[in-house]
C-alpha cells in the first residue's frame, strides 16, 4: 500500500486536460488540390490562441494555386461527379459522417487547440453537429426531385466557399455537405487563423475515397479569398464572415452571373419578459453570449430585460458570471476559452473601451486570466443606451450589453432597431406571446426559451445586413441548385 495522501483543504477542481496525443500535427501543410498535396510557394504560421504556441506552417495559396484548385474542381465536376446518381453521392456523404464520428475526439482536440474554444463545446457541439450535417444532407442527395417537384434541379457547378474561424469544422460541414449532395464540386478556403481541422478533414476525404478534385481545400489570407471570388471558373460563392467583407464580395460579383449566399454579422436581441423562468433565462443569456467566447454571429449580444425584473435578473446574471470557469480550452471543466486571435482581442478591447467612455457601467467577475495567449474576461455592460456603439456594432466577443423595455411593443421596436437581423431570443412562459413576438422579429431565427440551438434540419440565415440565402434544412439545398423554370 502506498503512502496515504492528505485531504486537501478546499475544493479546487484539479486540472482535467483532454490529452492532445491523439492529434498528430505535420510541421507543414500544403494545399489539397485534385486529391494531392501541392507544395506551397509561401507559408505562414498558425498558432494556438491559448498560449501563442506555433502549431504548423500553413500554405498561402497564390492566384495560380487558386486556378489549379478551381480547374481540379471543374474537371471533377465534368468527369463524373455531377452525373453520379444521387444515391452514389449519398454513400460518400454517409461515409464522411461516420468517419467524423469515429475520429470525433481527434477533431475536437485539434479544434480547441487551433481555435481556442473549450473542449466541452468542440466535443459536445461542433463535432456532433458537423457529423449530423453530413448525415442530413446525405439523405437529400437522391431525393432532390422530391424536394423540388417539377423543377428539375441540377447542380450549379463549382462552389467557392469561404468560411470563418469561429466554428471551423462545423462551417466546413455546413458548406460542403449540401454542395456535394446537390452534385457540385467544391473549392473551400478555411479562415486564416483556423485551418487545421479543415486540413485534417482532407484525410477523412481520403479515407472516404471521395473522387479526386470533388473537394479541394486551399489556405491563405484575404488575398486567397479574393482570388477565389474573382475566378471565372467558379459558379457560386458561399461566404460566412464579416459584413464588411460580405459587402465587398457582393460588389465584386455584381454582373458576373455567379450565385451568391452571404451569412454575415449579427447583433441579436435576447428579450426577457418578467414572467419567464428566471434561473433558466439566466442560463440562456449566458449560453447566448459566452458560448464560444461570444464568437458567434447569432450571439445574443443585446439583452433586453423587462424593467420589472431588471434587478433580480442582472443580480443573478452577475452571480452566474462568477461561476464561469475561464481558462485552458483543453481542460474539460473550462466554460470560456481563449479569444481566437490577437486581432480579434484588440477589436474587443477597443469596443469595450468605447462602452466605458460612452458611460455604460461595466461588470467583470474576478477571474485570473492566463498570462500568455489571448484572453478576455466575460463582461456585462449595464446602463447601456440604444445609441452606444456597444449596442449597435457587432463585438464578436464575450461582451453583453443590457438594455431595458417596458412593454412587448417597445421590445419589438428596440430589438428590430439594428442593421442586422440574424437571430433573436424570447423568454416568457406565455406561449401566445412567443408567437406574437416571433411574427414581429426581423430575424432569421427566433429562439423561444432557449438560445444558440442548432439543427441541420432547420434553415439558418439573416435579414438585412446579416446576409441572404439559407443554410440547413431543405432551404439549404436551393443555393446549390439551378432549375429549369
Amino acid at each position, binding site marked *: *500500500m502506498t503512502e496515504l495522501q492528505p485531504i486537501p483543504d478546499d*475544493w479546487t477542481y484539479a486540472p482535467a486536460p483532454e490529452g492532445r496525443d491523439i492529434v498528430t500535427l505535420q510541421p507543414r501543410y500544403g494545399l489539397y488540390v485534385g486529391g494531392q498535396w501541392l507544395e506551397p510557394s509561401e507559408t505562414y504560421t498558425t498558432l494556438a490562441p491559448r498560449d501563442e504556441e506555433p502549431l504548423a506552417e500553413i500554405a498561402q495559396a497564390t492566384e495560380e494555386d487558386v486556378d489549379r484548385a478551381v480547374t481540379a474542381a471543374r474537371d471533377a465536376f465534368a468527369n463524373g461527379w455531377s452525373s453520379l446518381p444521387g444515391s452514389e453521392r449519398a454513400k460518400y456523404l454517409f461515409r464522411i459522417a461516420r468517419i467524423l464520428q469515429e475520429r470525433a475526439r481527434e477533431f475536437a482536440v485539434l479544434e480547441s487547440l487551433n481555435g481556442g474554444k473549450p473542449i466541452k463545446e468542440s466535443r459536445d457541439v461542433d463535432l456532433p453537429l458537423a457529423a449530423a450535417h453530413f448525415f442530413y444532407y446525405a439523405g437529400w442527395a437522391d431525393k432532390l426531385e422530391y424536394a423540388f417537384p417539377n423543377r428539375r434541379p441540377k447542380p450549379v457547378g463549382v462552389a467557392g466557399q469561404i468560411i470563418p474561424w469561429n466554428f471551423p469544422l462545423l462551417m466546413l460541414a455546413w458548406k460542403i455537405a449540401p454542395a456535394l449532395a446537390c452534385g457540385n464540386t467544391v473549392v473551400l478556403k478555411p479562415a486564416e487563423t483556423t485551418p487545421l481541422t479543415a486540413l485534417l478533414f482532407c484525410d477523412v476525404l481520403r479515407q472516404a475515397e471521395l473522387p479526386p478534385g470533388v473537394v479541394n481545400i486551399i489556405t491563405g489570407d484575404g488575398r486567397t479569398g479574393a482570388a477565389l471570388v474573382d475566378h471565372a471558373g467558379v459558379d457560386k460563392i458561399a461566404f460566412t464572415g464579416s459584413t464588411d467583407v460580405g459587402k465587398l464580395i457582393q460588389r465584386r460579383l455584381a454582373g458576373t452571373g455567379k450565385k451568391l449566399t452571404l451569412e454575415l454579422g449579427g447583433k441579436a436581441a435576447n428579450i426577457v419578459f418578467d414572467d419567464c*423562468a*428566471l434561473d433558466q433565462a439566466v442560463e440562456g443569456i449566458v449560453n447566448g453570449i459566452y458560448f464560444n467566447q461570444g464568437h458567434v454571429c447569432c450571439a445574443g449580444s443585446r439583452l433586453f430585460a423587462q424593467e420589472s425584473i431588471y434587478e433580480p435578473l442582472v443580480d443573478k446574471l452577475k452571480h452566474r458570471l462568477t461561476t464561469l470557469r475561464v481558462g485552458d480550452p483543453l481542460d*474539460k471543466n473550462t466554460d470560456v476559452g481563449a479569444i481566437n486571435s490577437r486581432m480579434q482581442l484588440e477589436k474587443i478591447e477597443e469596443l469595450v473601451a468605447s462602452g466605458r467612455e460612452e458611460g455604460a457601467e461595466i461588470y467583470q467577475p474576478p477571474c485570473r486570466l492566463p498570462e500568455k495567449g489571448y484572453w478576455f474576461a466575460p463582461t456585462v455592460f449595464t446602463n447601456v443606451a440604444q445609441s452606444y456603439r456597444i449596442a449597435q456594432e457587432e463585438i464578436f466577443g464575450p461582451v453583453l450589453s443590457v438594455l431595458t423595455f417596458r412593454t412587448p411593443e417597445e421590445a419589438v421596436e428596440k430589438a428590430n432597431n439594428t442593421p442586422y437581423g440574424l437571430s433573436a431570443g424570447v423568454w416568457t412562459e406565455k406561449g401566445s406571446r412567443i408567437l406574437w413576438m416571433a411574427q414581429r422579429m426581423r430575424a432569421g431565427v427566433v429562439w423561444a426559451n*432557449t438560445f444558440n440551438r442548432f439543427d441541420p434540419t432547420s434553415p439558418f440565415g439573416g435579414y438585412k445586413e446579416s446576409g441572404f440565402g439559407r443554410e440547413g434544412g431543405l432551404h439549404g439545398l436551393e443555393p446549390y441548385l439551378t432549375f429549369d423554370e
Partner: protein
Amino acid sequence: MAQAPALPQGFELPLEPRLPRIGSVDAVALEERAASLAKRSIKKDAKLWALELAIRTTDLTTLEGADTPGKVAALASKAIRPDPSDPTVPSVAAVCVYPNLVPSAKERVAGTGIKIAAVATGFPSGQYPTPIKIADVRSAVELGADEIDMVIDRGAFLSGRYAKVYDEVVQTKEACGDAHLKVILETGELGTYDNVRRATLLAIAGGADFVKTSTGKINPAATLPVALCMLEAVRDVYEQTGRRIGFKAAGGIRQAKQAIQHLVLVHETLGPDWLTPDLYRLGASSLLNDILMQIRKQKTGVYQGPDYFTLD
C-alpha cells in the same frame, strides 16, 4: 400556533418572512443545466476532497420494516468508523432511522457527535390525521432524535390545499423544539418542477431548516434536475432574505460518481459555504461502501474488491 393567513386560493403563502416570487421553472433548460454540470471532470485531489465531504455529509440510513436494534447498532458502528482500516476516513453526519429505533442508534453513537435523525409525520406517505403526525414527531424527539425528517402531505399539495401543507410544517417545526427539521417533498410524486419549486418555498416558509428531495421509497427520487431546482429556490431565499436553508438529496444515489455530481451542483449553485454537514446532507445506505472503495482507489491507486468493505 402560526396559521397561514386567509388569502384567496393560490395565494396562501404568508407575506412574512418575505419569499421570492414563486415564478416558474423551464424543464428543458433545467435538465440541460443539470446535465452540463454532471459533466464536470473531478480528478485527483479534488476527487478525494469530494469523496471525503460526501462521507462527512452522509445521513446513513436504514428504513425497513425489518430493522432491529441489532441491525441499527451495526449501522451506527459503521457510521462512527466507516473504514476500520483507514482511520483518516471521517465519521458520517447522522444516522437516520424509524422512531422506534432511535434509542438503539443513540446509545451506540453516544459521545461521537453523530446526530440521530428520525423520520416522522406518518413517513413515508404522510396520509394520517395531523394530530397523529404531530404526536409522531413529539415522541421521536422524546426518544432522543436530534433531527426530524418529516414528509409533506402530497395529497393536500396535489389537490391545491397548500395552506394545509404549510400549516403542518409550521406545527411540526413547533413540535421539534430544538431538533432540526428536514422537510421531505417526495419530488417523485409532485409531477412537475414547478411543483417542486412551489413545495420547496412552501416548506421554507413553514420553517424548514432543511429541504429534502425524497423518502427513498419512490422512484424517481433525488435526480440532478430536481436537486438543482430545489437548490435554486434555496438560493433565491438566501439572496432575498439572508436565510440559509440546508438541502438534503436522498434516494437513488448509489455510486460515488453520482454523489460527486450532486456536490458539484451545490458547489456551483450555492457556493462553497453550503459544502458542510450543517447545510448539506446526502441520504444514503449502499452509497457509503462505493465511496469507501473510491477513496481507497484514490489513495492507493488500486481497486479492492467488495469483500474488503463491511456490509452492515
